[in-house]
């Protein structure tokens, strides 16, 4: 499955970059994230609880490795997650561009392999779930960004 898109953040690239590398921020904005800790210089480990529609939220352990970092404009990620309902493995590339109005344009592409029960039963929905979760996460991050720029934290 390929998930790609763009998202415009209302804030400067350096701040966006900083938030994207901060597990304490990511755990607040990623849908269903329950825990996320730095497990190495470029590695985060965490637990997410994900459920959509009729599917009762189930836990996944997640590990993310950041690679090829070019602050504050580019990084790649290796993602690995597993839970009782299945697994996800894959890589993602994220590029940040400065916009004329002071905002930041994110371009992302992820290539994910989803397996196990969720893939067997929910194949036709994976794409939409991935899109939905990506959008929710990015919108929450943008909200956090704006709150920080306004001089506080959103929660």
């Amino acid at each position, binding site marked *: *499955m*390929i998930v790609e898109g763009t998202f415009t953040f209302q804030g400067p690239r350096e701040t966006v970059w900083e938030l994207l590398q901060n597990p304490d921020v990511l755990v607040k904005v990623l849908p269903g994230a329950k825990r996320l800790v730095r497990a190495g210089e470029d590695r985060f480990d965490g637990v997410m609880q994900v459920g*959509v*529609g*009729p*599917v*009762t939220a189930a836990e996944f352990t997640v590990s993310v490795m950041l690679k090829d970092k070019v602050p504050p404009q580019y990084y790649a990620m290796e993602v690995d997650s597993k839970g009782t*309902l299945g697994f996800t493995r894959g890589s993602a590339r994220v590029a940040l561009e400065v916009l004329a109005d002071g905002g930041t344009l994110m371009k992302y592409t992820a290539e994910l392999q989803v397996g196990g*029960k*969720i893939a067997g*039963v*929910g*194949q*036709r*929905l*994976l*794409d*939409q*779930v991935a*899109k*939905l979760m990506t959008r929710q996460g990015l919108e929450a991050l943008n909200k956090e960004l704006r709150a920080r720029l306004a001089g506080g934290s959103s929660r």
Partner: protein
Amino acid sequence: MKPAAFEYHRPDTLDEALALLAARAGEAKPLAGGQSLIPAMNFRLARPGVLVDLNRLAELAYVRPAEGGLRIGAMTRQRVVERSSAVQGAAPLLAEALPFVAHPQIRNRGTVGGSLAHADPAAELPAVMVALAARFEARSRSGSRTIPAAEFFTGLFGTALAPDELLVEIALPPLPARSATAFLEVARRHGDYALVGVAAVVTLDERGRCREARITLLSVGGGPVLAAEAARVLAGQTPSEDVVRAAAEAAATRDADPPSDIHASAGYRRHLAAVLTRRALVRAFERAGHVA
């Protein structure tokens, strides 16, 4: 293929059901026909702690003509609606779409309200209800409210229902004069989830121009997609081949944001959306008395 343990309640009246949902809000899941929920439970994808079985609520199973339109109880079986002469007369779009809903065995058990509250993005009934501008009555212990179909569906499996609310009735307004409808879909095999489906309701004015078009697409987004751009192309126009083609193109490229999966790519779904919208519009305009 066995569900996780759950507590089971089978109330005899709507009041009892609402009291149970209020007492166990967040934990309790209403069970209607069970054609989606039970398989999800058996796969252990869904693990509701408490089931409130609505199947004894005979008070919610009816089709009644009302104010030129129809009122349909949420627990009415899909097959009953499909075969109802009142539905064929007042809401032919619904009668035309129902044979595409899975298989007769499933429609014998599946309910209209169950399919709507489940809000699967590939389901036919949500798209039909949005096209018909249906109004849903939701009830909880603290009262009842009416939700327009277009506001009821909030995204992938999402509805405006609160955890203690039940969808109890669907009200279909009468179609305006010089209106007609059409439903079309493409699935890999009959009864499979649609790759794309289209419901169209068109209304002509006295001079044969399109006064209003409500077109909804299914399986091209998180929920039923009302094709507003396509409607704008048609508004005030005589429905010529060119106008219909332009509207279908607008629906496929500007209204729809289809997903890719192993069954069909987003590009193929867009192609289907254009073709099916064009055919559905041609059929609906013909039925409305327009001669191309």
